[in-house]
């Protein structure tokens, strides 16, 4: 039997189907947890944020509109906001995830198990990793930790102009190296 698509499962979740809910959990929990872990840098907080994200999926599944994008993007956006809200609540800026070396995890993901879109995300990960450290750090603080450019300048004790230049250079590099490449 052909497995249900993400959208079909989301519709079943909207109809209060717990089996569909757990099927979506099995599909996306590791991605949601990785994202919340990256934002919060703490296993316990990440676990709570992951739980909150899936509870929001349960209560808001009706709001998902398949024509507007993939369920994974919708769910990860919820996870991103949930984790950043939690980060603000904790009133602290936690360090980047130190649970384990992310590259190590990628090595155990086999090519056979990697779908086309996953390969695309994987290439973005490596594109980010290939950025100079000072640019990669800014992506992390801006996107995952939710800091503004002036906050980053304060935290890193850098001139605001330097932060702007480095962040812009990082994004331009990703646009050139990843976006243009994958769209060919």
């Amino acid at each position, binding site marked *: 039997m052909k497995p249900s698509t993400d959208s079909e499962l989301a519709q079943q979740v909207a109809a209060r189907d717990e089996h569909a809910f757990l099927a979506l959990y099995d599909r996306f929990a590791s*991605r949601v*947890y990785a994202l919340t872990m990256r934002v919060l840098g703490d296993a316990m907080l990440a*676990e*709570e944020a992951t739980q909150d994200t*899936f509870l929001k999926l349960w209560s808001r599944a009706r709001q998902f509109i398949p024509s507007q994008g993939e369920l994974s993007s919708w769910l990860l956006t919820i996870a991103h906001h949930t984790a950043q809200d939690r980060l603000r609540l904790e009133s602290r800026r936690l360090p980047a995830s130190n649970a384990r070396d992310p590259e190590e995890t990628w090595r155990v993901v086999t090519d056979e198990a990697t779908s086309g879109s996953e390969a695309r*995300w994987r290439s973005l990960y490596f594109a980010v990793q290939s950025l100079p450290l000072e640019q990669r750090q800014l992506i992390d603080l801006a996107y995952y930790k939710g800091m503004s450019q*002036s906050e980053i300048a304060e935290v890193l004790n850098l001139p605001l102009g330097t932060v702007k230049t480095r962040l812009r250079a990082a*994004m331009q590099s990703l646009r050139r190296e990843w976006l243009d490449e994958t769209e060919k």
Partner: protein
Amino acid sequence: MLREHCKPYQENLPAYSLSALDADELVALEVHLQTCEECKTELADYQTIGTGLLHALPPQIPPARLRRTLPVRLASGSNRTVNLPQLFKRFPLGRFVNAALMSILVVSNIFAILQIRELRQEQAALTERLSAERAAIGMLAYPNTQIHMIVPDVQNLTGSVLVDKDRPMAVLLLWNLPRLDATQSYQIWLVNARGDRISAGFILPADGEFTTALVQSAVPLGEFIAIGVTVEPAGGSEQPTGERLLVVEL
């Protein structure tokens, strides 16, 4: 080719796509984006990267307990799991120890206050008894003092009353006075010729066999014909209501 006036906005597009633009530049850029298709197109590219960053992290498997507890959460409608390790993380051990010490301190203080109150009550009773005994000694030495034997209404109770009819006081000396529970007290009454009963104090039974109590009056005892004692509710009554313990005719 972007127009020259787009340049300052174009530079902010990467930060805007990551929600890292400061508020002062945000509004200006959003106004510009409403009219500039070139900048909108470029922004869409950066936003694709932003969406990609959500997906680009290597997967990490969450703890298995999370999957086990989620169905329970769905049923309960709760949005929050409070587990013990997290509780300890939010309230580290030091805070628990401090809270425990504070609780012990508060309980100790309450206990000490109760003990002090009890000691003060005992001290007041002892002072009253001492005062009555000194009065008894003084009256025994006084030539006009009369001694009246009591007529007890309860078994084994014996005693006497020391009275000077010109003075507004008398002393009751009692042996084998039964102890009462906390809901009752012995109340002393003075009885005048009209039969009126006037409260004249209380008797606090002593621990030993011998109890001394002061009978207090606003007028000399000569105006009364008898002294009586009854058992009343704790704190006393306006008029005698309970069992009579004794009566002494003066």
